[in-house]
Each structure stands twice: as C-alpha cells, then as structure tokens.
C-alpha cells in the first residue's frame, strides 16, 4: 500500500534556500551588519575572534559529551554542535557527526518563520525539535535544541546542539522498528516547541517529550546536556560581544562564511569542468522487503559551482529507510567537508552557497510525510553519502594535488546490532553495539585505506573494549577481529572491516533480544574508484543450537563459523529476534572501496597483505593476479605473477 499523503503536513516541509536577508519576523528585532562592516574587520581582529568562535563550538561539543549519559554520544560522537547567524546560516560546525551539523540552518529558518509571532522568540528561550522535515537531525532519534542569543534586545545569533537519543518510543526498542511502514510506526516527530522559556525549563514540554521514551531519565539527562551546551556557548559569546562589540563579532561570523565560500569557489575553479555520476543501492526497505532501492546522483561542476542532481532516484518506500531533504543534505555535507574543505573553515553557510541541489520530493532521499524515516541516518542519508563520495572523489582524482584528500567510499553502511533484555545483574538493558564503527576507510590515490579506521561522517568515532561490553552486557565474545578480503581490492586496497562473534552469557533470561538492521548484504555499497573494486558485502550470521559451549569446555575457542555446529542462517537486512542460550551471533561489517586496477598492485604488497591476513591466497591469485611463493604470503613469485596477470588481462578482453 503506498504512503497516503497527509493534508496539512506540507507546511513542515521546506526548501533549503536561505532566508531573504530583509525578511521580517513579527516584531522580532534582528541584529544585522552591512557589507561595509564586514569588509572593515582587520586581519588581527578577524583571526582572534574566529579562533574563539571555533573554541566556543568545541566547548559546546565537550559540554554535550561530558553531560550526556549515553554511550552513543560520549563514545561514538553521534552528535553535533554549531553556531548560526541571526538568519540561521551555519557559521561553524564542530568535528563530531557532520551529518548532524548539516541541517541546523533549516531548523533555524523554520523556527524564525513559524515561531516569532506565537509563542514568540525571547531572550532565554530554547526550542526543542526532532522533525527531520523541518531540519536539525536526520531521523527522530536526533533531537535538536536551538537557542537564540539576544544582545541588547536584538536576536544576535543562534546556537544548536543535536544528539542521537537512545529511545524515543515507537514499536521496537531503540525506536528502530524493522517492520515499520510509515512514520506512525515510529516516534512521531516534534516540530519546534519552547523547551526553555526565558531561562526556565518548561516542565509541561519536558514531560510531553520524555513521556514517549523507554528510557526517559537518560533522555532527560541528554536534554540537559544540550541546554547546558547552549548555555556554555551563550556565556562565552556574550563575553566576546562585550569585548569586541556586536557589529565586529557579527562581521567576523559573516566573513567566516564568505571566506569558506570564496576559498571553495577558488578550489572548484582549479578543477576541470565535468559531470560525474554514481548509483547507490540499498537492499530491503524493511523486514520482508526483497526489493533493491537506488539513489542516483549526477554531479556537474561548472566554473565554481557544484550541482547535485538526484533525478532518477527511486520513489520513497513503504518502510524505514527513507530520508528527508535534511538527510539528503546530511549525505552531501560530510563529503564536502572532509574531501573539499579539509583546509577550509567548516562554515556550512558559506559552503552551501557553492552547491545547487535538484531532487524530486517523494523520492527515497527526499521523502514526504508520512514516509517512514526511522533509519534515515544510516540508510538513505548514508547511501546518498556513498554516491556523493564517489562523484566528488572522481572529480578530485583529476587533480594531482587536490586528489590527496579523496578516498573511495568508506564503510558502506552502519551494521546495526541492538541488544536488549535482562543483564547479568538482573536489570533491564538496551544497547546499540558500536563495534561496526570500526569500518574500513576507502583507498587513497597514493595509498591503502585505513583498516578498521572508521566511518566517513564521524571523524572521531570509537568502539568500546570487549571487556567493557562483557562487563556491561550479558555477552561473551569468541572473537573481534579484522576480516580477510573485506577491503575493496585495487592498486591501493580499501581498508578492511571487521567482525565480532559472540554468545549470550550469564543472563538470568538465558538469552537476549536482538534487532539487526543493515543493508549491503545482497550487493556491495562501498564502491571502488578508478578501476578499484568495491569492499565486500555485509554479512551477518545467526547460528542456532550451536555446539559452542561444549567446544569451550573442551578447551577450544572456535575461530570459524564452520566450527560452531548447529544451524547456520545468513541474516536478512532487517530482522528482530531472540538469541537463545546456545545461539551464536556473527556480525561482519564493511570495509572501504579500492582504488585503481588490482592487477597494478605491487605484488610484494599483495604478498604482505596475505601474510598479515588482510587478503586471502585465493583473492591474491584470482583478483590481484599474484602467485605467491608459498601459501603463507610474504613473497610473490615474480615470473608466475606476470604470467598470471597477462592471462587475467586476456580474459578481461575475452581473448582467451
């Protein structure tokens, strides 16, 4: 059954265009500066204030991390913090989850337009929202708190803090319902509401918000973390404005965006004109859906502009993997920042000015209400990022110097493993296993991708130690390791991903509840570049009624699925089930794509990879065309390798 449009929901959707600088919002007074003031800031003042604004964003991030009670925030860095100007344009984003810094501007604009009259926007107010059609986060778990900063009665600027919340209701724990068909199966979005009113937390709004969660206290703590982060920023910004004056500080904010824009334009002009396209696939939009859904992007570079055209992308699906325009932008910005702007200020307000987007509402990465978006962040937003990554890297690969910041697609998706149940101490628990954060990075133009190096949108992710997981949750690991052949083959190999294999352990309930949700099982997602191969597919396996406990008692720790006995099932993309006492779960997440033809890889490098367990002897021979001197690797047989590679080339050209 197709998604049925909801009359009245249109006003929550919006474009991504900035507001008209002269637009008025009720009787709200905005602090503005003119071009002359912006031009008048000297080099010294600019740099001192710029550095301090960056420090304020860092302070916000630190404040969130320190105050949050949630591992996803404190360790996986799944949050964002930003400063926006009076019109909501983003001046500076922190080095956290960049997807979450990508649409705070949309949220700011919507709030200005729709809240300035009723209930009004006042000094000391803060607004809470988790409506991805409006902006802020990518799915409902990403809750934003926006805070307008007033100075001398004028709305001077905004700060925003957004973080992934562990659970906000919906059918399944963690709000990841694998059976969801539309947004009403999920946590229902909240448009901007006044959570702090003139400096006071509103009890009614807070209750309305927390009532929906399975872990209200944890979510309540994170709410305070975000409010606290905004307060920290406002205190620091007010001191800064006191010292330098509002016009000077604002002029610096505008200059930071102008500076990012100017420099990105200059960089784009260094690159050749052209058009690059890519397709990203997702297999399964919810449990039992066996379709493949595609996102298509054609990126055109003309002069100093980039145009991303998503025409041809599949329509939104009855499932959980769609994303809104905010998610689509969350798929673009992290790539622009890490690949095009590593040396340019991270001021999205300026960077977006160099970008045009064409996307049809109602498609899988620009869906309309009430399409299901529960897994937007790690599905269609992530897949958008994969496709954008491919086009931008291909463009950069044409330039000898700028290509250094390009990589093939990193870790094709997030392999969700959610565990819930009764822990070894008899308490209830629900947690997202963060092992898959150790995905492989894509290969570079001059070297291999980083093995178990992370994911693209979170530059500083982290996994917990095995001991911490075993202490916290009723589980025992058989292994956690890097996986052979998981990195995309190429002249430069993609970074390998890894796997974890564990059993339920010591729970009084004799088992745990398991939610699995991850695409990339039927087809690879981390594409290669310039002839490089994609990384291996994701692979999750459930072994029922295994013999593992007997094996352990006999003194052996199995290292292979084949040694576990029982019935082995490859897990589909979306599954909710229980793990029993004798069951084993194996989760194998993705690596990064390769770069260049694997037949051009140095044979010694292949031999070394075999010795290190990164590449199997079979792949060395069949994919890389390298004949090893012995099965252990470390040495290649040069003559035989040359012959083998010649043969493989003949085969490709169908000459054999």
């Amino acid at each position, binding site marked *: 059954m197709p998604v049925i449009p909801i009359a009245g929901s249109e006003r929550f959707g919006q474009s991504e265009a900035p507001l008209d600088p002269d637009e008025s919002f009720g009787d709200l007074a905005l602090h503005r500066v003119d071009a002359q003031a912006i031009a008048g800031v000297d080099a010294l003042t600019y740099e001192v204030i710029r550095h301090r604004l960056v420090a304020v964003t860092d302070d916000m991030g630190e404040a969130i991390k320190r105050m949050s009670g949630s591992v996803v925030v404190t360790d996986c860095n799944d949050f964002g913090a930003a400063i926006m100007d009076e019109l909501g344009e983003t001046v500076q984003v922190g080095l956290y989850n960049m997807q979450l810094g990508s649409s705070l501007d949309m949220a700011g604009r919507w709030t200005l337009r729709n809240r300035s009259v009723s209930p009004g926007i006042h000094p000391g107010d803060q607004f809470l929202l988790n409506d991805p059609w409006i902006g802020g986060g990518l799915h409902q778990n990403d809750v934003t708190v926006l805070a307008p900063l007033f100075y001398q009665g004028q709305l001077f600027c905004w700060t925003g803090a957004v973080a992934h919340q562990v659970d906000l209701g919906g059918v399944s724990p963690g709000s990841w319902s694998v059976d969801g068909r539309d947004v009403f199966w999920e946590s229902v979005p909240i448009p901007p509401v006044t959570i702090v009113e003139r*400096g006071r937390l509103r009890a009614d709004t807070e209750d309305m918000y927390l009532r929906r969660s399975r872990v209200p206290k944890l979510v309540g703590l994170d709410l305070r973390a975000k409010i606290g982060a905004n307060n920290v920023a406002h205190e620091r910004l007010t001191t800064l404005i*006191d010292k330098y004056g509002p016009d000077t500080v604002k002029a610096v904010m505008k200059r930071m965006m102008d500076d990012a824009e100017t420099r990105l334009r200059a960089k784009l002009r260094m690159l050749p004109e052209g058009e690059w396209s890519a397709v990203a696939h997702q297999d399964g939009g919810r449990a039992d859906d066996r379709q493949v859904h595609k996102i298509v992007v054609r990126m055109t570079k003309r002069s100093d502009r980039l145009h991303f055209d998503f025409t041809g992308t599949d329509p939104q699906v009855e499932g959980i993997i769609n994303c809104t325009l905010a998610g689509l932008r969350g798929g673009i910005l992290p790539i622009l920042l890490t690949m095009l702007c590593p040396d340019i200020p991270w001021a999205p307000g300026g960077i977006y000015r160099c970008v045009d987007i064409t996307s049809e509402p109602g498609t899988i990465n620009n869906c309309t209400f009430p399409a299901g978006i529960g897994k937007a962040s790690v599905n269609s937003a992530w897949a958008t990022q994969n496709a954008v990554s491919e086009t931008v890297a291909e463009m950069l690969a044409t330039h000898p110097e700028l290509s250094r910041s390009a*990589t093939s697609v990193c870790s094709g998706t997030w392999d969700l493993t959610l565990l819930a149940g009764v822990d070894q101490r008899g308490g209830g628990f629900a947690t997202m296993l963060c092992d898959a954060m150790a995905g492989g990075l894509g290969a*570079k133009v001059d070297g291999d991708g980083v093995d178990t190096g992370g994911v693209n949108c979170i530059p500083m992710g982290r996994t917990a130690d095995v001991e911490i997981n075993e202490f916290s949750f009723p589980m*025992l690991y058989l292994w956690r390791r890097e996986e052979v052949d998981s990195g995309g083959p190429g002249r430069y190999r993609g970074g390998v991903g890894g796997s974890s294999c564990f059993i339920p352990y010591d729970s009084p309930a004799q088992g745990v509840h398991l939610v699995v949700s991850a695409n990339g099982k039927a087809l690879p997602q981390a594409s290669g570049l310039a002839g490089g191969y994609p990384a291996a597919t994701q692979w999750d396996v459930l072994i029922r009624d295994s013999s593992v406990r007997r094996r352990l008692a006999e003194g052996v720790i199995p290292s292979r699925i084949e040694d576990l006995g029982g019935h082995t099932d490859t897990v589909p993309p979306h599954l909710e089930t229980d793990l029993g006492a004798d069951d084993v779960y194996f989760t194998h997440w993705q690596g990064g794509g390769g770069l260049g033809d694997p037949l051009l890889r140095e044979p010694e490098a292949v031999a070394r990879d075999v010795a290190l367990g990164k590449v199997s002897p079979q792949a060395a021979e069949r994919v890389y065309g390298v004949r090893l001197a012995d099965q252990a690797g470390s040495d290649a047989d040069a003559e035989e390798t040359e012959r083998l590679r010649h043969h493989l080339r003949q085969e490709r050209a169908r000459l054999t």
Partner: protein
Amino acid sequence: MAYVIGIDIGGTFTDAFVADQHGRLAAAKTPSTPPDFADGFLNAIDELARELDIPAGRLLGETDYIVHGTTSTLNSLVTGDVARVGFLTTRGHADSISIMNLEGRYAGLGSDAIQHMARTAKPSALVPRHLIKEINERIDYKGAVVVPLDEDGVRQAVRDLLADGAEAIAVSLLWSFRNAAHERRIRELIHAEAPGLYVALSSEVSPRIREYSRSVTTIMNTQVGPRLDAYLRPLQATLRERGLTGSLLVMQGSGGCVSADNAPAHAVTTIGSVLSGGVIGCTRMAEALHSGNVISTDMGGTTFLVGLVVDGAPARTSNTVLNQYTISTPMVDVHTIGAGGGAIAWVDPGGNLRVGPRSAGARPGPACYGEGGVEPTVTDADLVLGIINPDNFLGGRKKLDVTLARKTIAERLAKPLGLSVDEAAAAVYEIQNAQTADLVRKVVVNSGQDPRDFSLYAFGGAGPMHCASYARDLGARQVIVPIGATAAVFSAYGLATSDIVLTAERSQPAEMPVDPARLTEAFESLETELATRLAEQGLTFQTVHYEREADLRYTMQLAEVSTLVPNGSLDAAAVAGVGAEFQRRYDELYGEGTGFPDAGLQLITCRVRATGTLAVRPELPDHLPGDGTPIPSGTRNVLLDITVGVQPTAIYDYQALGAGHQISGPAIVEAPTTTVALPPGTHGVVDRLGNLVLTFAPAGSSGLARAGSATSGASEKESV
C-alpha cells in the same frame, strides 16, 4: 653535608640543580649528548661541582640522592629503538592492538589534522603480526575460567617466538586483572623454555579493565624495559665508581620517583619523566608561596606545555597517548597545546593571518636564528616588536638577526595583508596570545575548574614574554614568573624536590554499593604490595603516606572519575561516602545536576598511591631585598600593545632587582634565561624568593577592545 641533585635531560639541554640542607644552591645547563645521554649527565655533575667549587668526587660522595628526569624511555618508543617483543594473548583477540578501538587513527592529533580525514592513518604496528600468538584460554568478567589454559599451545608459541628472535615477551589476556592465574602460569612456562627472559604480565603492569590499552601498556613496557635497564645499569655503575654512595632515582610520569634498580621492571611509568618536573617545580613553589591553585605554562622554543596544580596537588590522569596509542599508566596531566616560540605565522589561501599549528622546530628554527629558517615565527615577531633583545637572547648565548626576522615578516605577512611590518608582528603577537588563552582555558575548564581561581606560572624561554597577555585574557588572579635561583633549571629544581611515589591499581568492576569488607581487602592488598616496593627502594623516608582512590562511573557511561577513598577499614557508611564523593566530583567536573544516578553507580578500579617523603627537601633562599625604586638599565622602543603602538619602554636587568622592587608596564625585564614583558596596565613586584609577580589594572584600560563596550559581565546572562 648532604646534597640532593636534580638532572633533567631534554633533547637539547641537560639541566642540573643541586641543593644542600642549608639553602645553598647551584644550577648548571649543559648541552645534551645524544645518543649517549649519560655523557651529558656526567658533564652536568662536573659543572655543578665547579659551581659549588668542590671536586666532583666530593659532591657525589656527599650526595644523598640524584633524581633523574630521562627521555630514555620516550626516545626509545618515539624512534622505535626498542626490544624485539613477542606478544601472547587470548585466542580471537590478537587484532585488538591493530583495531585500536579505531581511535588510534586520530588519538593525540589536533583538529586541523583530523579534519584532513584522508590523510589520517594509524601508526605502524606495535608488534609485527608474526610475533603475536593467540592462546586457547578464556576467563570471564567474574574471573571464572571458561576455557582452561592450553599449556602445550603456550610452549609451542614460546618456542616459535624465540626462534623468531623475540628478546622479551609481553602477555596480556582478557580479564587477567580479575584472575591472573593463566598469565602467571604462562610466565612459568616461558621461563622453563628461556630462563631469565624479560617477561611482563598485563596483570602486573596495568591490572586495569580495557584490554586495548592494557595490552598496549604491557607491550610498551616490555619494549622499553630492557633498554632502560641497559641505560641505567652502566650509568649507575659509573656514578658509583666516581664516588656516589647515595641513591640514583628516576622520575616517573606520575610526578614522583622510583629507584633506578626498580625502574626497568616498571619502565612504562617513566614515560613522561621529563614532562612532570616543571609541574612538580610549580607545586613546590606554590607550597612556598601558598598559591593553592596553579596553571603551569611552559612555553619553550618548540612546545607549549600546560599542567594544573589544584589545592596544592598536581592534576593527574590515568591515561596518556603516545604515537597515537593509548597507554594506561597514572601520570601528571601535561597537555601539549602548541608549538611555542617556533609556531609559524602564515597567510592562508583566504588571505587570513594564522599562527600555528606548524612549527619551525629546533631546526631550522625561527628565521632570526639565521640557520635556514625562512618562515616567520612567533619568536621573529617578538624580536621585531623589540620584546627580545637580539644581543641578550638566552643570556647572550644566541645572537639573533633582526633583519632576517623583519624580512620574512615583510614578505610573507605584511605585504599580502597590506600591513606595516610592525603591525604584522604585533598581530602575530596578539593572535598567539589570544589562541593561547583559548587553549589554556579549554584545559582548565575541561578539568572542571575556573581559570579565575588560579595563579598562572610562566616559565620556559618564551613563556614570560607572552604570559601577561594570555593570563589577563584568561582572568587569572596573578602571574608568577619564577626567575629566582631556579630560573634556568626549573624542571631540575622540581626533580630535586620530589618524593618517591609508587602507584598500584587493580580493576574490580562491581555495582555500587560494593561489599565494604571486599573493598577494604582490595585496598589493603594494594597497600601491602606498595609497602614491599617501598622497602625495595633502599631509602629512608621521613614519612610514608598512602592515598586511596577509586574510579567510579555511572552505569552505561564509558568514562570514569577518580574519587578519593578514606584510609583504614571501610564500612557501609564509608562506601556510601565514596559514592557521594563521586557524585560531588562529577557535578564539579561536568556541571550541577548532570549526573545520572538512576542508572546506578559502578566501581571499576581501585588505586593506591604511596608517597615516601625523602629526608632532604631543599628550601629556596631568600632574594636580596631591593632599596627604593629600581633603575632601568636602559630604554628601547617596544610594541607591547597594538592599540598604543611602539613606545619607549624601560628595560630592567633582573640581576639588579631586589625583593620588594616594583615595576609598572610598559616595561621589559631581562633575565639570563628569559625576558619578561609587562604590557601597559601590568604591575610587577619582585617577591621574597625573587619571582616576578604580575597583576593587572582593571579590564578596559588596554587590550584589543576597540569596538563597542569594553566592560565585561555587564550583559544579562540567560541560564536554566
């Protein structure tokens, strides 16, 4: 006579400090002598003897102990000149040290480097794959054996490692800190194969939860232990030959020392040996001056280090990052926040003036050194502004070339920015100071403190030139520039005044409230272990003091907070008190009401620190009092405040200043090892120990605030 000596060996200089118990001091600074640093050590002893005007043999004969800050361990690790180590670990987990919790890709890097994601990489492998062997054995989170130890497998693995050339073996098994039986048995099996081989067990080196950093710590300890032994053993023998009857002690990163005989077995604790001297120096000075809370800032030619002293004790951390690997060993918390005087100023592609994070380093150094440096640095700006006297840098030991400094600032900064050379140099000075304030503030705030409650100590060659500006920006109460008797060798002074500090710890993760009897037993066993190790030091202590702490956390949070635990036998009330103290400390660190008590508390690690106070604690002598108003030694044009510009500025020779002398900015004080800048609005007074103490006129009379109101704190502050 009983002397105590501190010898601090840095990459460039070896600093030495000696004191007797009658307040007689001497200091020496000699070049370091890589790769054989021991030569520089002995030269420094000779130099001290000359300063005291006694034969070196007599000095050594009358010395109670020498405390040595050494780069040996750190150098081995940084240069990779380490023992060839084999590694044994639990089957299924060999990759832990290469997965590095993935944080190893960026740990310890600055945000500029992290932003360039494609260029980040993990460091090279700690142990080559073929020297890592997995063993069939498994212990669970409670310490129960799930899979018995496969002894034949161990024997085979050890034989393979030895055949592969392993010089030492590190053993780190899952949950070994809960049950060390398998690790201990493995050591027996190794020694049966190879008697006397250097073996380190994770349950002894770092018995703390989190296998990644525990394994890293154990491996690094095994890599450097044999090397440290090979350095200290001959050094100690030579010192004995030359007459030393007292003890040779080695400074640890924890800020306390350990005997040279005992150091190699705990080699990893000596990482940071040279970093902590400065902070200990500050702690001692703060004791003498009753400063309480101190921000220690050490701005040298190539680094900028920040440490904290809170309520008279140095701030500590239980983890540190080296070569992007996380090591878990208790240390004084020293942050590297910048590149010091060598920080390069540059114009970015957007036409903006930037300072750092790149550094000209010691080679080629700033342009004004005339050693091939072509990029302008902070030191070049200081020179152009007139703050540094080109003929009196480092007491005249290094001549600086103003022409080269002006030339590079003109070409690379002033011209593209459309500024005069003076303006460009002033901008570099101001930006450097403002950034320093931002970064120091971050260190202070992240430790849960407010910079306004602190005195700031500034040392290192370049610190005193900048400290007035950044301290004022931070809102610090006052600045103390220690340029008395210890000026040149402040870290060496810190070494000579340190105590023996030994730490023992063990993770015992459990839900709070834990059983008081078990907790008491845990602490007592750590104290017994420490008492044995204290006795092994072969020293006489004036007092021995044990300090207990426990790392607690809210369930589900990964980070723990160290919490003080009372001594003696603990009852239920004491355990509850520990929980309350944790919550208080948590609120202090992260803000009121940010804790999540409903999640429950867990106690993760118990730790005891034993401090043995040594018999001799050198007292600093009083500085000679000064009469009347100090007379400047001259005047030169200096730019100290961009809003004022160049102005004739009084220059004072520190050696002519006496205790009680007062100076008002703008002024420059030149001391043999550093230069102190007093911008307008700064007031300086020489205290009884000869330190220069700076305070500031109320805000608003100076600084950058040109636009708008300059009063602070006047606006409304919105808060929940």
